């Protein structure tokens, strides 16, 4: 990637003047450009070159300017005037002046959230964003009121303190690590121009100030802050940067120093002022001017986070520093979403709150009634006595009248029963998700061996959503396909040359090589050539056909923004030419041109060098109109060595045929269109190439308007677009190219699995309809039996009509008797529908009243393919489903154009592939290949959902059983809210006694093995149907917990009635009974006992015994030695055994009955997994079902 020697062959300076036609016509072809004549024009070669780093594929609409839907930045494209209020003035080499009146931040970065001082308040503040914590905090505060002090202050604070401190510790550690990396970053050395000594001196990065001159050299190629380039080691002012840290794209980008600043030593620029926009997040936009006359764009800045490549040094002036650099402004944290399960959990939490209120209300009413009944005798009651003599006067001892007592009782009850809302659940869920994420990351089945990339969990709170997905929205290019473009066939001048693709035996273009600096250079990628076409090129010189072919490949070689880079090989005499560029299509085309003998050797700012069949030729690039989504084409204006000027245009067929000169080339156009259809029907991406020779007048006219447009300070973009549209007309057709985008490994199988799992896969692509359909076939999304409904309309009315027709078809199909089918593929009822809709139609449908109909049609179709859709439409389709159903959606994509869709969907997955990391940055999970979706959803998603669902229910159960035991006791204490269980035990209950097993089970338990889950993808339906967590299960669990609490409370109560038992002893019995019961209950539901499970469950019971014993050996507590006394009696053990058996009988019975007589799929699959299938070979024809199955009905 990084050759040692300079990339560019030294070439004469490019002239600053318009192309001189006078010389063209008079002088014979020369290898040198015309001599520079005096020119007053401000023409700058920089403008001829791409000015933005727009990396989207030419076929697709460009990436959204909006980087994120959450925070939009004002697009600087809409050139608003830079005035005092919204501009920053940077005085070159004058940091003092640049920093007044406003002090700009220093260049030190702090990614740390906290400092030593602010850690506590800030971290607490963040943690208290959880409403549950505020609830518990309020309860702690209430508890501190003397009249309400149910728990001792220490005991009341402990649970929340524990939860908060665990999280705080985690945060502190993460922050510490960030701090370390900050420090090393800040102390790196940069070479800064010192005005006093008049030379560059080394200073640490964090001391760079706005306005200072910074020199970055190849030895330490990291850019310390955002710099406006002033000059570079290259005489033309070019600098190459790699932006992988910024946007993840590994290809080189070119940046330019301005002609005006290039020549002068930078220190002489002192006093010049750069007026630039205020810092913003847009890494592809920059808008400024130098001394009010020279405009500066994004091509003139290098940003922090980039690395200098192939450039010896650059000098720039710091414009944005530290936290104002674009990379820092863009460092967004992982998106925060809330999982479906958690949302549902909140619903149940509210139910529990209602239950809590009910318990408190009951206690209060009964307590009030008791007080009322004993109103007169309260002083006589030895155990109440409200008269207090101990003070000076006879007063009342903490008695404020019945009214207040009732109020106090209520609040005390709230404090006592508060754990009904499980505090530890939140932290447990976090830990469990962490563990689940660990296993997902470690999973070798989701390890991309080719790129060496593991699965990434970027969002930690939606793991369980992966188990409930119903819709998958997939991008095509780079997601289903590899995005490794390969040139396959060409149609030149109405002739189809696709021989290279078919005949594999053909000798490969081995001969193509060029000699650069005495070394043999070969293109890195070999392309099969078509012998006929080679023949035409070789022998057809002079003929129309030959010229056309010649121009076709010249167009391929020139009409792009590719930079050739020479890479070393093992053979010292040989080098590889690596074509670096922003679009893989362009790369493929340039490689193809090279294979046919048009080797792009050099790209400089004003010209390119192409070796045409062994002869090196220099072409001046006089102008370049970038690709944009409206024109859907790009063009270059090329000055040929023979002084002719041609415009080469390439673009999507839809836009290209409109600008062709139809009369002359009618036949060729017709033939080409035919070829295009065949190409796209086999899944090739097509581009149409055209050209036109420009005469002098045309050129001058274009040149002046281009000049005007590109120097314009305002509305530059739209002016340039207009110029381009003007010149790209009346083209003669050269031909078309077909590029293959290979399917990724395992895509058809993955899609089949997902479909069996009941997940609908929708493909949203920017490609043409034919391409999309053919890819649909090749990835088995579409099959021959499917009825295709195609909607591509140009108006709202026709959209409406086709939708209505589609709707009629679907209803007809639905009403058709299923008896009609004869072929039972095992996949279910016969003929299926596929909807193919294009972006244009969607334009008329989305966000109008037709949306509803589209939804109806789309959901009744088995496959939906959307082609030619813009990024925002992708998000719109996701929103369509999200708005109208409760089904979970997942979007998967790899490119910047998928960002909006990824952010819109419930779960966003980024493919870390060829196309940069924007999709990954916006995603919740990132992985290497599409097929990993299968293990991710079917295995991990299933497990995560099952585990988390169970864990939440279990936590509700575990806390409520405890609260109910407390509650029953309160009924026997004159409603005075005494607890027999010591307060320390009740505090430790959710922290120690029962915490670990649920977390371990939540991380480790597997209901089914990976093999079974992959064998029967239908098992995924369990999550979609919310089988493991729903209101019914919640209610059952609560009823179970009430029964068990009754057993726990009343068996000892009845056994110890009329006995000498003291509160502490029976309290210990209850504590142990609850803990053992709760752990056995968990153990009963464990699917797989491995040693970790054993250790955690039995260990927790042992730990409880130890804790209870510790509490009881403290002489200052009333319960001293109680546990030993009570354990010495038989009654204790008999009670314990009776509690456990009586408590478990109903649950165990229910479990056994339902598992046996109403088995869920998971249960059956588990039996199959354990014992094997008894009738492997007669699956289909089973006589069965004496009992109809009610659960299964609901699914259908």
């Amino acid at each position, binding site marked *: 990637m990084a050759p040692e020697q300079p990339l560019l062959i030294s070439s004469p300076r490019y002239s600053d003047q318009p192309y001189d036609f006078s010389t063209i016509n008079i002088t014979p072809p020369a290898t040198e450009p015309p001599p520079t004549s005096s020119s007053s024009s401000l023409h700058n070669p920089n403008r001829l070159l791409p000015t933005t780093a727009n990396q989207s594929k030419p076929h697709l609409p460009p990436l959204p300017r909006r980087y994120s839907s959450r925070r939009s930045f004002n697009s600087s494209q809409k050139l608003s005037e830079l005035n005092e209020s919204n501009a920053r003035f940077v005085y070159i080499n004058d940091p003092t002046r640049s920093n007044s009146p406003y002090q700009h931040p220093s260049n030190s970065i702090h990614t740390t959230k906290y400092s030593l001082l602010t850690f506590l308040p800030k971290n607490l503040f963040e943690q208290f964003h959880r409403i549950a914590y505020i609830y518990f905090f309020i309860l702690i505060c209430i508890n501190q009121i003397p009249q309400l002090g149910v728990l001792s202050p220490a005991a009341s604070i402990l649970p929340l303190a524990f939860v908060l401190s665990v999280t705080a510790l985690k945060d502190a550690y993460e922050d510490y690590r960030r701090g370390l990396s900050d420090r090393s970053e800040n102390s790196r050395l940069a070479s800064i121009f010192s005005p006093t000594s008049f030379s560059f001196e080394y200073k640490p990065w964090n001391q760079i100030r706005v306005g200072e001159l910074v020199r970055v050299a190849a030895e330490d190629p990291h850019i310390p802050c955002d710099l406006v380039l002033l000059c570079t080691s290259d005489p033309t002012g070019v600098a190459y940067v790699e932006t992988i840290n910024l946007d993840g794209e590994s290809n080189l980008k070119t940046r330019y120093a301005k002609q005006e600043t290039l020549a002068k030593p930078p220190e002489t620029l002192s006093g010049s002022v750069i007026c630039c926009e205020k810092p913003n997040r847009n890494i592809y936009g920059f808008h400024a001017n130098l001394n009010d006359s020279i405009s500066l764009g994004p091509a003139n800045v290098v940003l922090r986070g980039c690395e200098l490549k192939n450039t010896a040094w650059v000098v720039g002036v710091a414009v944005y520093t530290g936290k104002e650099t674009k990379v820092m402004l863009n460092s967004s944290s992982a998106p925060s979403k809330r999982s479906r399960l958690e949302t549902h959990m909140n619903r149940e939490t509210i139910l529990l709150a209602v239950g809590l209120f009910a318990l408190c209300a009951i206690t209060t009413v009964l307590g009030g009634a008791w007080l009322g009944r004993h109103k007169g005798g309260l002083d006589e009651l030895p*155990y109440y006595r409200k008269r207090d003599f101990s003070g000076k006067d006879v007063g009342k001892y903490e008695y404020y009248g019945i009214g207040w007592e009732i109020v106090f009782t209520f609040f005390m009850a709230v404090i006592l029963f508060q754990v009904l809302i499980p505090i530890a659940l939140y932290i447990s869920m976090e830990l469990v998700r962490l563990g689940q994420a660990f296993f997902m990351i470690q*999973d070798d089945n989701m390890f991309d061996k080719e790129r060496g990339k593991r699965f990434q969990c970027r969002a930690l709170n939606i793991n369980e959503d992966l188990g409930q997905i119903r819709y998958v929205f997939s991008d095509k290019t780079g997601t289903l396909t590899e995005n490794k473009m390969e040139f396959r066939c060409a149609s030149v001048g109405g002739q189809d040359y696709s021989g290279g693709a078919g005949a594999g035996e053909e000798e490969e273009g081995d001969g193509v090589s060029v000699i650069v600096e005495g070394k043999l250079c070969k293109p890195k990628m070999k392309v099969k050539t078509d012998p006929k076409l080679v023949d035409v090129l070789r022998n057809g010189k002079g003929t129309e056909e030959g010229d056309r072919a010649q121009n076709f490949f010249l167009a391929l070689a020139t009409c792009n923004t590719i930079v050739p880079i020479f890479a070393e090989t093992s053979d010292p005499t040989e080098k590889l030419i690596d074509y670096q560029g922003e679009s893989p299509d362009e790369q493929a085309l340039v490689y193809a041109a090279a294979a046919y003998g048009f080797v792009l050797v050099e790209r400089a700012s004003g010209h390119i060098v192409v070796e045409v069949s062994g002869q090196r030729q220099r072409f001046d690039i006089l102008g370049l109109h970038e690709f944009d989504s409206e024109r859907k084409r790009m063009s270059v204006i090329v000055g040929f060595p023979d002084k002719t000027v041609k415009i080469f245009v390439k673009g999507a067929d839809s836009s290209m045929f409109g600008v062709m000169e139809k009369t002359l080339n009618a036949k060729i156009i017709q033939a080409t269109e035919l070829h295009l259809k065949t190409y796209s029907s086999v899944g090739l991406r097509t581009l149409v190439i055209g050209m036109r020779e420009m005469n002098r007048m045309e050129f001058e006219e274009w040149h002046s308007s281009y000049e005007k447009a590109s120097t314009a300070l305002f509305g530059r973009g739209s002016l340039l677009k207009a110029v381009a549209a003007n010149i790209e007309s009346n083209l003669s057709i050269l031909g078309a190219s077909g590029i293959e985008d290979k399917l990724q490994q395992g895509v058809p199988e993955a899609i089949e699995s997902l479909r069996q799992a009941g997940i609908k896969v929708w493909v949203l692509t920017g490609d043409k309809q034919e391409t999309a359909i053919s890819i649909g076939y090749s990835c088995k999304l579409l099959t021959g039996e499917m009825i295709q409904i195609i909607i591509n309309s140009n108006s709202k009315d026709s959209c409406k009509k086709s939708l209505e027709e589609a709707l009629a078809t679907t209803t007809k199909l639905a009403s058709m008797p299923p008896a009609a089918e004869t072929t039972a593929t095992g996949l279910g009822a016969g003929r299926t529908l596929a909807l193919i809709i294009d972006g244009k139609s969607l334009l008329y449908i989305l966000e109008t009243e037709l949306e509803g109909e589209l939804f109806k049609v789309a959901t009744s179709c088995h496959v939906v393919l959307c082609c030619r859709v813009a990024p925002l439409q992708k998000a719109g389709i996701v929103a369509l489903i999200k708005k109208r159903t409760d089904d979970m959606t997942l979007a998967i994509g790899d490119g910047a154009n998928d960002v909006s869709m990824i952010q819109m969907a419930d779960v966003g997955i980024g493919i870390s592939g060829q196309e940069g990391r924007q999709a990954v940055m916006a995603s919740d999970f990132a992985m290497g290949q599409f097929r990993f979706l299968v293990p991710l959803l079917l295995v991990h998603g299933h*497990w995560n959902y099952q585990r988390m669902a169970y864990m939440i229910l279990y936590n509700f159960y575990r806390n409520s059983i405890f609260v109910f035991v407390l509650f029953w006791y309160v009924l026997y204490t004159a409603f005075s809210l005494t607890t027999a269980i010591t307060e320390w035990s009740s505090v430790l209950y959710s922290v120690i006694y029962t915490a670990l097993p649920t977390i371990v089970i939540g991380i480790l338990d*597997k209901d089914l*093995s990976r093999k079974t889950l992959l064998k029967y993808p239908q098992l995924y339906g369990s999550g979609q149907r919310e089988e493991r967590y729903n209101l019914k299960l919640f209610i059952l669990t609560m009823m179970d917990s009430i029964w068990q609490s009754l057993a726990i409370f009343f068996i000892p109560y009845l056994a110890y009635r*009329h006995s000498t038992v*003291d*509160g502490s002893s029976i309290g210990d019995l209850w504590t142990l009974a609850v803990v053992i019961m709760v752990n056995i209950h968990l153990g009963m539901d464990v699917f*797989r006992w491995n040693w970790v499970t054993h250790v955690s469950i039995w260990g927790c019971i042992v730990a409880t015994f130890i804790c209870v014993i510790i509490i009881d050996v403290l002489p200052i507590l009333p319960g001293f030695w109680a546990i030993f006394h009570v354990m010495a009696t038989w009654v204790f053990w008999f009670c314990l055994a009776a509690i456990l058996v009586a408590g478990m009988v109903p649950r165990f019975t229910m479990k056994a009955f339902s598992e046996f007589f109403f088995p869920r799929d998971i249960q059956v699959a588990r039996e199959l997994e354990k014992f094997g299938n008894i009738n492997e070979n007669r699956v289909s024809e089973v006589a069965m079902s004496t009992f109809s199955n009610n659960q299964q009905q609901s699914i259908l």
Partner: protein
Amino acid sequence: MEMEGASSSGSGGAAQPTLLPSRRSKVFYRFTQQNLPACKPALTPTLVITIFLLAGITFVPVGIICLRASESVEEHVLRYDTECIPEDYRSNRVAYIKDDSISKKCTLNIKLRNQMKAPIYVYYELDNYYQNHRRYVKSRSDKQLLYGLQYKDISSCKPVESSNRLPVVPCGLIAWSLFNDTFTFDVKARKLNVNRKNISWKSDRDHKFGNDVYPFNFQNDTLIGGGKLNQSIPLSEQEDLIVWMRVAALPNFRKLYGVIEEDLDADELLTIHLSNNYNTYSFGGKKKLVLTTSNWLGGKNNFLGLSYIATGCCSILVAIIFALIHVKFPRPHRDASYLHWNRKSSATSR
């Protein structure tokens, strides 16, 4: 639950550890791939029926044994708070109990039904007495009981932490309301010896109540809650207090008064001389005297035995029902055709 440890090492994952460095231990690799060896208990009908039958078969006999044990206990319960009130105070019991001038002595008789073997435990039982009331439970200072007057912070003892501006030892409502009825027993005109030593927990005497802490300023107030303490005996030997301070868990409770260490024959007439000092009349509490023998299971309580028998019977019943349904409507175990999608397709194919 079935535990077949050997049968099933995680059968799942197809992942091969090929691409991993060999230094990573195999165990850790299996852990990261979630393939730790594990046993998968499965509820087969046989297993379920066996479990229920087993539970039933063990619980019923255990229950019967418990019942027998409970039956073997000889217990006499005598409610005396109603008996020991003179006729003319029956309508105004509170006035009677509050009037110090009236003698509270009372004599009652019990005729023993069966022989009672030593040791015979003498309990007093209080009913409707909320010793577990929150205000009551809290009103004590365990540190003061251990360290005596040295320990000053006795605010937890409210409302009885001091009287006449002097701290009270032992402080708090619990001590203040010390039970103070006394009982003596005559049999055949001979006084029975009731051993009142070692009626409290040894752990309490040794570690919870200080042996150099003496009662101080106790019951010196206008409002007297219950028994007084001999100021010359350290708390660690005030066993009545120690017993009383072990706060009962439930509103009807017994507390050990003493132990009669000789056998009593059947049909013997036991004369009880008691002083009915303790006021339970103001809140309708009952006072009972309990004489009981003891066995390995404790005192007389049929509940445990009955609950065991009930649970056992339930288990057997469930086992039978389960077996019956299983015979009538068998579901072939481990049958893939029960997966719902297979059922659906077989339904449509017919």
